[in-house]
């Protein structure tokens, strides 16, 4: 295979990976804020909502893009993945519906209903995270089914949820002040431990159930180079714990550190996953070239994407700048 039919699928799997990674970081933190939401403290809840209010909708759009790229570039894989994961996909959507509408209803509904919508938001965030994790677990085991696959799905559901809670807590450390910030820092420490346990167990189980993954990671000489990934992850965790140990600091010193570490850890874990399964779009079954759409379709969308994606990244950046700093109460145009 050569020419367009060879390199177009590579570009698109890269674009899809990029969308998934951005999604995991961005919607990850707002899902995490939802998971952590305490029901007992109304003021904290308002501030937590305010910290994600201007962003969550655009964050979720990265999921639409990721699924969209899968559908545009690898339609066979799209049908196979979503068909096999029919029920978890439903629960994911159910969770997203619940939290998406709860966000808007809570601000407008009668005060008596607010607590109810806040519970919906928390439940929805939790359902969405768990089902994403479960889907990821089933996906990397190549849809083999059986107890092993389901067990790995459950493990991955817990790990992904912990990871989102972790990045959500780090986000709150950056965006909030006072008591809530301290509370978030504690949560960040606790969920970081959970995440480390999760990362280690997934890293152990993954090569054990898949010989291909095992070979990729434990063959010299690339194994030496690959060791950098867990090593850098460990460094980031150490930085995080050192920073959180003496928290809080005078004048909100470097409150961006935990969130930056979280992004780094997400990035590295994602690299590891991507490296393990490339060039498969369904692990062990379907490569990107087997599942790819017609080159004329990919070319058509690529031309647009090359212009539009930088624009999207630019205005996303601008909006994050506009709403930078500590979260302020949300008001509609007042």
């Amino acid at each position, binding site marked *: 295979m050569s020419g367009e039919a060879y390199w177009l699928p590579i570009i698109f799997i890269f674009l899809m990976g990029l969308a998934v990674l951005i999604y995991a970081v961005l919607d990850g933190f707002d899902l995490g804020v939802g998971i952590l939401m305490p029901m007992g403290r109304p003021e904290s809840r308002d501030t937590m909502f305010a910290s994600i209010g201007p962003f969550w909708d655009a964050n979720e759009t990265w999921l639409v893009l990721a699924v969209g790229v899968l559908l545009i570039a690898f339609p066979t894989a799209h049908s196979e993945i979503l068909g096999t994961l029919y029920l978890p996909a439903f629960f994911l959507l159910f969770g997203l519906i619940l939290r998406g509408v709860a966000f808007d*209803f809570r601000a407008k509904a009668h005060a008596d209903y607010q607590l109810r919508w806040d519970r919906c938001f928390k439940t929805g965030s939790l359902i969405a995270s768990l089902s994403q994790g479960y889907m990821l677990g089933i996906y990397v085991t190549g849809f083999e089914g059986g107890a092993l696959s389901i067990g790995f799905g459950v493990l991955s559901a817990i790990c992904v949820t912990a990871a989102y809670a972790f990045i959500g807590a780090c986000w709150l450390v950056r965006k909030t002040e006072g008591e809530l910030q301290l509370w978030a820092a504690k949560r960040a420490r606790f969920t970081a431990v959970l995440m480390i346990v999760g990362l280690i167990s997934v890293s152990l189980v993954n090569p054990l159930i898949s010989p291909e993954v095992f070979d990729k990671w434990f063959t010299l000489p690339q194994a030496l180079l690959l060791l950098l990934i867990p090593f850098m992850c460990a460094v980031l965790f150490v930085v995080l714990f050192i920073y959180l140990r003496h928290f809080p600091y005078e004048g909100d010193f470097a409150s961006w550190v935990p969130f930056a570490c979280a992004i780094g850890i997400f990035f590295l874990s994602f690299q590891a996953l991507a490296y393990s399964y490339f060039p498969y779009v369904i692990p062990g079954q379907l490569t990107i070239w087997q599942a790819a759409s017609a080159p004329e379709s990919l070319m058509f969308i690529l031309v647009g994407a090359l212009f539009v994606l930088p624009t999207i990244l630019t205005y996303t950046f601008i909006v994050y700048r506009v709403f930078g700093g500590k979260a302020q109460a949300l008001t509609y145009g007042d």
Partner: protein
Amino acid sequence: MLDVFMLSRIQFAANITFHILFPTITIALCWLLLFFKLRYNRTGDEAWLQAYRFWVKIFALSFALGVVSGITMSFQFGTNWPGYMETVGNIAGPLLGYEVLTAFFLEATFLGIMLYGTKRVSNRIHTLATALVAVGTSMSAFWILSLNSWMQTPAGFEMRDGVAFPVDWWAIIFNPSMPYRVGHMLLASGLTASFFVAGVSAYRRLKGDHSREVSYSLKTGVYLAALLIPLQIFMGDLHGLNTLEHQPAKIAAMEGVWHTESGAPLQLFALPNSETKTNDYSIAIPRGASWILTHSGDGEIRGLNEFEGEHPPVAPVFWAFRVMVGMGLLMLLMSWTCTWQVWRRGAPDRLWLKGLVAMTFAGWVATVAGWYVTEIGRQPYMVYGVVKTADLVTNTPASHVMFTATAYVLVYIGLIIAFLHTLFYLARKAVKSSVKDLDPEVAGGEI
């Protein structure tokens, strides 16, 4: 027992029915918001800004419901209709992709500034954000309708081994029915939003809110409706002629023409009977259908007999079409009478205000009916003349689809109730605060 095919159809129908309600509001409501904002910028009249603040909340709510149901829809291509993407993915994929890239991100990103940004950005940037969201929602409508139109009147492709390949993107995007469908839908959105705004404002007025804000919104809604409805009737006629040319079976079902005939009558009321292939209890205007469709009383209309086994179920299409047209005529009567009253005495009297309240969701009824005509009318095909719906369905167990279909329907019913509840709660709250502003004595009183 329902099979996977029927269940998937029910689930998808429930999904698109629920989904279309909200974009129908938001596409045009956002332009109305921009109008309110521009009026405020120009006149400095606070009432326009108050109108903006009230409607932006309802916009945000409708937008959120549209987003969540839209995501659900995009997943269902994969979960329930895997054959769809495998057969026409080369064409549908890029069109959906352009929608995400050019429209979704734009609206979702600038929505944040539009809703919460007034303290953080200048007034000018805030107005710009509103404009960008409006452009985004309309662009989104353009792409999705382009794809839908392509499914109705496919062009610019070739089939190789049962898979569609693009040949001419220009012909695919600007397929024969696209301009009519985009025009018809944008006008439908304009009418839905204007009746919606007029209806809720009339409700507030009847509850005792005589603020200028309400009067501005009411007038804007009524005038806009009066302006758009004749355009829509004209556009609907053009759209019908286009359908006659490209999808004659759909027209035959809409008009209840069982056998090809010259001088076909226009059925005002009838019960289409697919057993006897006749219309029972028919009340009809002789030669009416021929006159409307061919602009000649003797024109020939091809009947359903020419499309044996390839025509849609007649009764739902026939009835949905009558509901849509009936709604359109009611909108014409309502908006013109109210415009006349506003023009003569500044506001409609109580009776007509009540009428406007009753017609708050007239646009929803007409739009949903219109989509049923379009979508059921395309059956048994998913892509007209190319692939049949039945060939594309998932092989997921029926029990799973039964579960999800039931769950979706329940969730949607719950959300509609919550939406209506919150809408009228917000309206009553606005009445309370504006009455309080006008007369401190009434504060805290019962309204």
